[in-house]
């Protein structure tokens, strides 16, 4: 990576973390949702730098164009939004710490398991891997070696869709 690219990546990382913090701690839930939107965009930039081109596009279209809009929709149907201060006053500590630590362990383990060949910036296999288009590989993997989990997920999603229509049907 050139220094300019490193600078862009660093900027995206800082923006992502900052907006994630705002999304977590801002008392106004609407601003939290907008910060979340920018976090999603920042994550998409990181996917680009990780060589996951298709995933970056999917991140934008699904999370920015879909999920954030639904969150904003739900928020805008809330009354007295600006007077409302959202603060978690309960002393729920154990469960969040356990879940957070577990998630951290999984992510750290996944990161440490990466082939060391890919870790240095200018290593040739890493560069080559970054520049390969991933869409075709992803498609072959999903409809080849991972066909069963893929089909299981589609059935789950179809079930969720049918269930949503059933709940929302006119009575």
């Amino acid at each position: 990576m050139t220094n300019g690219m490193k600078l862009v990546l660093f900027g995206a990382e800082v923006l992502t973390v900052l907006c994630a913090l705002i999304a977590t701690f801002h008392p106004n839930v609407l601003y939290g949702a907008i910060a979340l939107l920018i976090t999603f965009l920042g994550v998409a930039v990181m996917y680009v730098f990780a060589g996951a081109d298709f995933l970056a596009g999917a991140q934008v279209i699904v999370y920015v164009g879909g999920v954030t809009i639904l969150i904003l929709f739900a928020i805008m149907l809330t009354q007295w939004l600006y007077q409302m201060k959202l603060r978690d006053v309960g002393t729920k500590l154990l469960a969040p710490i356990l879940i957070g630590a577990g998630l951290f362990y999984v992510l750290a383990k996944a990161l440490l398991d990466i082939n060391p060949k890919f870790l240095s910036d200018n290593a040739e296999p890493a560069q080559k891997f970054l520049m390969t288009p991933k869409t075709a590989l992803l498609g072959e993997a999903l409809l080849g070696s991972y066909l069963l989990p893929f089909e299981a997920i589609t059935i789950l999603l179809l079930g969720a869709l049918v269930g949503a229509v059933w709940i929302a049907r006119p009575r």
Partner: protein
Amino acid sequence: MNQSAAFAHTLQSWTSQLPILSAFPLWAWAAISALGVIFLLALPFGGLATYVERKIAADIQDRIGPNRVGPIGIFQFAADAVKMLAKEDFVPPGGDRFLFNLAPLFVVVGALAAFAALPLGKHLVGADLNIGIFYIISVTTLIAPGLLLGSWGSQNKWSLLGGLRAAAQIVSYEIPVALAILPVILISGTLQVGSIVEQQGWGVGDYHFWNIIHNPFTIISFFLLFIGGLAETNRIPFDLPEAESELVSGFNTEFSGMRFGLYALGEFVDVFVMSAVLTTVYLGGWQLPFFNIDQWVIPLPTGIVALVHFTVFMTKTLLLVFVVMWLRWTLPRLRVDQLMGLCWKGMVPLALINVTGTALWMWIFKGQSLMQLLAKAFGG
């Protein structure tokens, strides 16, 4: 891998012999080409489109239309721009100033960002990304949060209703739009826009022709994509977010001056992007029918080929833009329930049938187009 060279590379190779310009690094050319596309193509298009739209409206309604500023009123858009810049930038007192100011930027950024991957010619692609067409449809979704946040920041019930309608409409119609592009991706096996255009061919020799007549399903998909694009860009008959007769002016009711100008510009640029996507995936992009300028009897210099490509691409795109404007003065507006019914009960099932049908066609006829089959049947 790349058949079509990116803009910046083209500029760099053209200027490699010149004294000062050859010292410019690639990123400088990339920045120059980005600014060039925005200021020489997108923004003038947005300005001229407002004038052309009014002239077309006038012609259809048997009026004269703008005719005072310059010959046949051609400088009307410049006068409008000056008026908008000079107007007070008003924020409604009860509104949310931050969101109100932020929202138009989302719309403009979403529409302009798509230009990075639009193939204006073989040597005129900002960045021929591996996921080109997917990038275009995903980056234009930034428009939806822009409309929603601006309407919320206005603190006005008409604005909010318009914004909610816009968001619901754009999110819903994203699905038929994506499904209507999918048959082309099945045919060409790539998301790269340059490659999609090149594979459509000239119609001579091997009878590769535009995707619109590749098979019966792609003809339907073309119209689905056009209708879905109309809905995504909030154009009549799908202009419910603005709906003058019910919502004053919808999501942009409270906007004035250049912020309103940015919304209007974003809308027109988005119409251009949608027409350009249709041209790219279904109408052969920069290619002339039955005439291959790249392999002419005399090899032409790259500059002339690029100019011809650009002209062909713009002609096809602007014809589609004209149809969009024509429709505006022809069709009445839909109701909300009709809009959602059309999307979920009409277009989505039809688009799914098209995707399946194209996949079956590719499997049965080994990827040959209708024209190739006919040519084979009649011994062509």
